[in-house]
């Protein structure tokens, strides 16, 4: 049997990889990919917890289904934004989006 901690560590690793991607990439689409990796890590966590801690309830699985749905909605809006920007600016490079100086 695989111990729960193995899953958690894999999830943590995926989380960190995703976070690195989200923080380090210049391209907006690539950042979005990092975010999706983070969400996957979260889902691994949720489902593993559900399996090992509360298998008789399905709260973890239900939660992760919500994550899936919201992730889809978020990706749709995010990609729409990216495409919208690309239309006007011909670039989705975050370093070139400098009309607003932060």
């Amino acid at each position, binding site marked *: 049997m695989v111990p729960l901690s193995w899953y958690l560590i894999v999830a943590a*690793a995926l989380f960190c990889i995703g*976070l690195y991607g989200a923080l380090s990439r210049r391209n907006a*689409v690539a950042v979005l990919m990092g975010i999706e990796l983070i969400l996957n890590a979260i889902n691994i966590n949720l489902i593993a917890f559900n399996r090992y801690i509360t298998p008789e309830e399905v709260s973890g699985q239900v939660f992760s*289904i919500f994550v899936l749905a919201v992730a889809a909605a978020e990706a749709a809006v995010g990609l729409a934004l990216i495409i919208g920007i690309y239309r006007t600016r011909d670039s989705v490079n975050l370093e070139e989006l400098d009309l607003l100086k932060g």
Partner: protein
Amino acid sequence: MAITPQQVVFILLSVLTLGCGLMVVLSRNLFHSALWLVGSFFGVAALYGLLEAEFLAVAQILIYIGAIATLIVFATMLTRGMMLGRMKMSNFQSGISGVVAILLLGLLVLVLLQVSWPTEALPVPDDTIAMIGNAFVSAYVIPFEVVSVLLLVALVGAIMIARER
């Protein structure tokens, strides 16, 4: 401790998932990143299978690969001018981000290992899918409705934003 076949499978799948994940964030070609992302999603789906969450495994493939990854690939291709040629993909803070990510990982692992997690999974009820279905219309009915409104809003919004002028 002898390693059981299930553990072998787990390790293989983890390597697949994490390896693909790493390639997603390291690849210099955006399109390849997207493809690696699909690979990573597959690995995660298989992990769900290993966790006996078959509904989630299939939903993962349906939504993440069938919908989200496709959307991402689509967006990658629509913003095609960006990815021709191998350009610098990482920003000025990538070095710091890398250090932060590694430190965070170390920290998380330390923290996670402090807890005495259960090592044995408990038996799973047969009718998980029915239970999920019931949960949606009983305890989770409000979030369910909220998510449906949210999806509607996101749909209309996304179309509005991306539509040609």
